[in-house]
């Protein structure tokens, strides 16, 4: 072994070891963050936190179906009992009045701070008379016998007022002591996990606990309870299912495409050694790509791992070019030196063109795209370098692979009719194809791009519908429409929430919304509590007013002494703080509606639809109510349209960046080839291929997404290699067949890899696959005809 060879191999192994070290120590994340902005506005920040950590992100809806209702109710109660002991959950609700006594005690004790009707007027003689007369009328009602014990303490009915306040939002129907759907066919339960929605591992664990509780409780009961089925829904369920689906697809597809490509290469090379060596650039590239991402971003996203490898499928091509083109057909031996001189510059230029394309992803505000860009750049450079410097050193002296020139000749004969066409006819044909494609795209211009984030969602439509149905049954806000009040501290956002509540209340009567939740309903601001406390009169004043008020009423004044004591206690009592809610069900309700981000507090007021069967809320009316008089600092956050707007801004950015990438590639080719005509003939087939693919996808009713765009970038990246080979000098003197053969093999491996992706069942992977597979094939065909035709058509002496 020469010193040079030893040096090269040692350097390579050192780099691989360093990359492996970085990869081993890197942090891997699997949450939604790849789809969320890196440098958000405050509103986007809130959106992101909502999606990742907000209360909505951790709600699991549990439905029991089939079997008989009593059996379902029993299972629901038993499951809830078990799950309430589990630390994975902060809230399990199935309609049982578990904390009802504690809640009632708390509300009763603090009724003069919580009731909205507590004002100085109400505690005047006239106010008291009205309130007590109302209470007496209440005593005559059917509920009178149950309410009467409250009256000596609460003759003005503040407790009933609070219960009214709390029940403004529709609650689910109860049957047999637990919640059921309106038709009684489903028994319902809501679980809220302790871990944030972004912690998919913890969510998976929580779902596992629920399934275990169901299995235990339905298995323990009578045999007929086995008929009861459980279904789960909600964001954690979707997140876990999506991850599993992507992982399954990534693993299955990686195995399948690896097997197919290995088989293809074995057939071509007829040499296991060549196969092994040929995979070295890919492996090194993948490792380097992950290391590059880890170093650049600090954490590697699961998405990057999942299909980054497909993006550097181009790196398989490098070794294919190296082996097949180094083979000297006549001598059946290999001459790396001549390949290095004649072919490496072409591969290098192709690689640089690809790097230019992928570099356009780097500045993206969409971390998922930026990571894919970094991965591809790192991977391609490493793979090309290994092909150029390491592979030649690793070749044994008697290395030989099968001569593939005959295949190339056969393919050339197939292309002959096209190549015989005159230059003008050929370019005319190309322009005609481009014209038709542009026309098709123009026809679909309005619906060309899909602007909904859900287009990337791996959640099926039927799952989304089922989720909506359960939410309707539960009267749960879908959490898609929120009013948000932000501020520097809890007090300021609670005050804001109270102002927003006053603005929203008229909308309930107008049937614009069905209701809303507010943290201030659980815990009024200190200002409001203080004002209520201050409105309570001193004992002597109250005694006199009370005497005046009860004169002539059917109530016995002397029975109301506890009222005087309680008001006195409230006057000198402390105001309620969040700590006081602990131990009641109000704590969970309150906690779910307050979101704290470092030094910023947010009060969330989820809106409920006016009717379960018409879930869309007239948001313009809500906005008008909130902003109409400038009295609220509340903002309406429509999660769906906000996240779609976010996605649309990514899409626009990605389009801009891709065009910039294309411009960089054009500049690179122009500069390197030193001829606009040559650059044009290299680029023309690529652009034609992209246009054709986009036109066909649109014509088939597919709306284009960011992933289609990435796919188009890949067509240009991979295709530029093909075109450059056809453009290269020396192509015409007998090596044409060899070039065509090696390119078709490289192309076949690309088509296999991406073709499989389009059957993955995961929308993002399908989009990518169905763009690149046909695009790469077309790029090869167009380049073989257009670019090589130009090269052939020119007299050999013209280029020296």
């Amino acid at each position: 072994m020469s010193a040079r060879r030893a040096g090269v191999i040692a350097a390579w192994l050192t780099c691989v070891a360093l990359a492996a070290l970085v990869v081993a120590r890197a942090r891997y994340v699997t949450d939604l963050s790849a789809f969320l902005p890196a440098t958000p506005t405050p509103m986007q920040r809130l959106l992101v936190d909502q999606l990742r950590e907000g209360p909505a992100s951790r709600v699991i809806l549990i439905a029991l179906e089939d079997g008989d209702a009593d059996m379902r109710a029993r299972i629901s109660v038993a499951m809830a009992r078990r799950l309430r002991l589990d630390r994975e959950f902060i809230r399990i609700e199935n309609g049982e009045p578990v904390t009802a006594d504690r809640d009632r005690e708390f509300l009763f004790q603090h009724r003069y701070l919580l009731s909205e009707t507590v004002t100085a007027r109400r505690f005047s003689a006239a106010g008291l008379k009205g309130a007590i007369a109302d209470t007496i009328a209440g005593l005559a009602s059917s509920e009178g016998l149950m309410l009467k014990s409250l009256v000596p303490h609460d003759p003005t009915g503040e407790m009933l007022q609070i219960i009214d306040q709390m029940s403004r939002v529709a609650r689910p129907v109860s049957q047999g002591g637990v919640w059921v759907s309106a038709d009684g066919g489903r028994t319902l339960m809501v679980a809220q996990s302790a871990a944030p929605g972004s912690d998919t591992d913890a969510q998976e664990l929580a779902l596992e606990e629920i399934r275990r509780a169901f299995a235990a409780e339905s298995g323990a009961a009578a045999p007929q309870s086995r008929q009861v089925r459980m279904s789960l829904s909600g964001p954690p369920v979707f997140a876990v299912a999506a991850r599993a689906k992507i992982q399954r697809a990534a693993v299955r597809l990686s195995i399948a495409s690896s097997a197919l490509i290995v088989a293809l290469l074995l057939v071509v090379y007829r040499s296991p050694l060549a196969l092994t060596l040929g995979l070295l650039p890919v492996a090194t590239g993948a490792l380097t790509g992950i290391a590059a991402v880890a170093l650049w971003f600090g954490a590697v996203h699961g998405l990057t791992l999942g299909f980054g490898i497909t993006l550097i499928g181009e790196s398989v091509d490098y070794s294919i070019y190296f082996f097949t083109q180094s083979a000297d057909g006549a001598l059946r031996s290999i001459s790396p030196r001549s390949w290095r001189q004649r072919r490496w510059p072409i591969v290098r230029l192709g690689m640089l063109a690809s790097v230019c394309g992928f570099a356009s992803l780097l500045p993206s505000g969409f971390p998922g795209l930026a990571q894919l860009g970094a991965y591809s750049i790192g991977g391609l450079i490493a793979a090309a370098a290994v092909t150029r410097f390491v592979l030649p050193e690793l070749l044994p002296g008697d290395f030989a692979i099968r001569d593939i020139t005959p295949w190339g000749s056969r393919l050339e004969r197939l292309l002959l009719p096209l190549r015989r066409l005159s230059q003008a006819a050929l370019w005319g044909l190309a322009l005609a194809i481009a014209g038709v494609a542009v026309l098709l795209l123009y026809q679909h211009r309005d619906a060309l791009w899909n602007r909904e984030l859900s287009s990337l969602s791996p959640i099926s439509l039927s799952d989304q519908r089922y989720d909506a149905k359960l939410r309707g049954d539960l009267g749960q806000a879908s959490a898609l429409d929120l009013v948000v009040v932000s501020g520097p501290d809890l007090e300021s956002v609670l005050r804001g929430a109270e102002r927003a509540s006053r603005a929203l209340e008229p909308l309930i009567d107008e049937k614009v919304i069905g209701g809303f939740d507010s943290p201030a309903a659980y815990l009024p601001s200190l200002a409001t509590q203080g004002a209520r406390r201050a409105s309570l009169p001193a004992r002597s004043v109250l005694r006199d007013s009370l005497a005046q008020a009860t004169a002539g009423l059917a109530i016995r004044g002397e029975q109301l002494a506890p009222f005087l004591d309680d008001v006195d206690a409230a006057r000198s009592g402390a105001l309620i703080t969040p700590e006081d809610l602990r131990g009641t069900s109000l704590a969970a309700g309150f906690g779910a509606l307050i979101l704290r981000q470092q030094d910023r507090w947010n009060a969330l007021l989820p809106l409920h639809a006016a009717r379960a069967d018409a879930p869309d809320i007239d948001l313009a009316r809500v906005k008008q109510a909130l902003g109409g008089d400038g009295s609220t600092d509340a903002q309406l956050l429509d999660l769906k349209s906000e996240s779609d707007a976010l996605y649309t801004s990514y899409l626009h950015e990605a389009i801009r960046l891709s065009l910039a990438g294309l411009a960089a590639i054009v500049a690179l080719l122009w500069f390197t080839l030193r001829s606009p005509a040559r650059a044009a003939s290299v680029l023309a087939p690529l652009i034609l291929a992209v246009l054709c693919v986009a036109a066909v996808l649109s014509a088939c009713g597919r709306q284009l997404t960011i992933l289609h765009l990435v796919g188009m970038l890949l067509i240009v990246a991979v295709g530029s290699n093909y075109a450059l080979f056809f453009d290269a000098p020396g192509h015409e003197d007998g090596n044409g067949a060899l070039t065509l053969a090696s390119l078709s093999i490289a192309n076949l491996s690309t088509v296999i890899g991406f073709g499989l992706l389009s059957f993955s069942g995961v929308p993002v992977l399908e989009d990518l696959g169905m763009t690149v597979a046909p695009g790469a094939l077309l790029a090869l065909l167009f380049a073989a005809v257009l670019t090589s035709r130009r090269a052939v058509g020119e007299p050999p002496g013209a280029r020296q």
Partner: protein
Amino acid sequence: MRRAICIGLVVLLTAAARAAPDDLGELLHLLGTRRHGHADFVEQHFLALLSRPVESSGELLYDAPDRLEKHTLEPRPESLMLVGDVLSIRRGGGHRRVLDLKSHPQILPFVESIRATLAGDREALERTFRVEYAGDLERWTLLLVPRESQVAASVAQVRIDGSRENLRHVEIRLRDGDRSLMTLRDHPGP
């Protein structure tokens, strides 16, 4: 003292002799044949808290087997509807509140006493109350004493009297001595 017990025993025995379980069965069967009922009611609450009784009035509707509606018209409109185990209450033009009897057993004696009697549903009656029957079909009295301690904590007894398939009075006595009395009259007209 012993004498008192003896007399009590004799009274009980003669009561039992006069109203054998079969008589209760006969009454409940008679009540059970009625599919619909529509009556006007006046309800008075006698409470220690109040210096005079408060009164409300309205209509009571019944549809076999388990639907009972109570529409109070005076002094404050209120409607109460019991179907199966679900009780919904609407006061004035306000929101409808829905309660599940199973999770609010304290309501049970107030509503189930009337409904189960109207339905002639002996099983339902005896599930919630110990039932004593006195009188004859022309003039009968049912004394219902709640079984469950949670319920018995507030309601001492419910006494219903009537004539054949018509209920006349429903009196609910609470443990603290307060009581309500509902007087029923067949609704005139269709």
